[in-house]
């Protein structure tokens, strides 16, 4: 089973990794971790006025940071999954939902896993726009991991370090 895990650079990514580790810890899987760097249009306009060099540098830095971040997550995930299962890492540029969908198709994903914070208490919706776009347009199965996700059968002592890790 091929799983594409879309990683955002917020606190939810640990919840997503823990979810994948928990659900697929006994199943043969090829996991690909993907982070999408979205070039900021404001930066683009500003830097195109004063030359391309700086813009390029900023993006390069963001890509490097994302790669380093994904590699830490990869190590974490590999330690929790079957040792023989590969975990790939990929950082791409573009509009997040487009890139995620294209990447899933190219990778031949059976499942896309994506986290969602939702919009808080004011809205009924517990899903964000990128997740919703992926959900609506994907050709494969999609799992939305919610920020509220807590594994029910874990006891309280197991939950504590998890939330502590999320805060760190």
């Amino acid at each position, binding site marked *: *089973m091929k799983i594409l895990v879309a990683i955002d650079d917020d606190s939810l990514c640990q919840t997503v990794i823990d*979810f994948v580790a*928990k*659900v*697929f*810890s*006994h*199943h*043969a899987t090829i996991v690909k971790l993907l982070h999408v760097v979205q070039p900021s249009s404001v930066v683009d306009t500003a830097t195109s006025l004063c030359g391309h060099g700086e813009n390029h540098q900023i993006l390069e830095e963001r890509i490097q940071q994302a790669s380093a971040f994904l590699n830490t997550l990869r190590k974490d995930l590999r330690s929790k999954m079957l040792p023989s299962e590969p975990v790939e890492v990929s950082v791409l540029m573009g509009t997040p939902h487009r890139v995620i969908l294209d990447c899933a198709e190219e990778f031949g994903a059976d*499942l896309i896993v994506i986290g969602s914070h*939702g919009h808080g208490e004011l809205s*009924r*919706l*517990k*899903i964000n726009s990128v997740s*919703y776009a992926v*959900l*609506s*347009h*994907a*050709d*494969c*199965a*999609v*799992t*939305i*991991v*919610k920020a*509220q*996700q807590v*594994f*029910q*059968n874990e006891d309280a002592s197991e939950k504590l370090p998890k939330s502590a890790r999320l805060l760190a």
Partner: protein
Amino acid sequence: MKVLIAQDESECSKTALESVLSRTWPENSQFRLVNVHEPIHGYDPVIYTPHSIVSLKEADKEIYAAKEAQLKKSLDLLKAKFNDFEVCGEVLTGHPKDCIIDDAESWGADLIVVGTHSRKGFARAFLGSVASEVASQADCSVEIVRERKH
């Protein structure tokens, strides 16, 4: 890991069940199958004669019985495949989205698995409404399984 599978008569909900059956789940997993029966509304005495109300109620009963039969068949499949795991199921009555979300909450589901149609072109923009409402309103994680492309 507590997995709630929402089921109806569609092809895609079969695909969802197959997808659950095909995987190796962590130890101590539990499965719950839910099939929601939505009663036929609008027994309006102006539109319906007493006779047609009776036949509507009978149709309702038939649909309920069919759902129970389908649930039992799927439960047998689950029990045969996952004999180490706890498996339960129920036919609920009400609005599908509300029943699924409320049941997931009261049972303490970690994951809801729900099927959706896989349409092409313009129609694809509209995700099955129950699937999309469950995905956007449930507190736990939701897996949307698509009908396989042919």
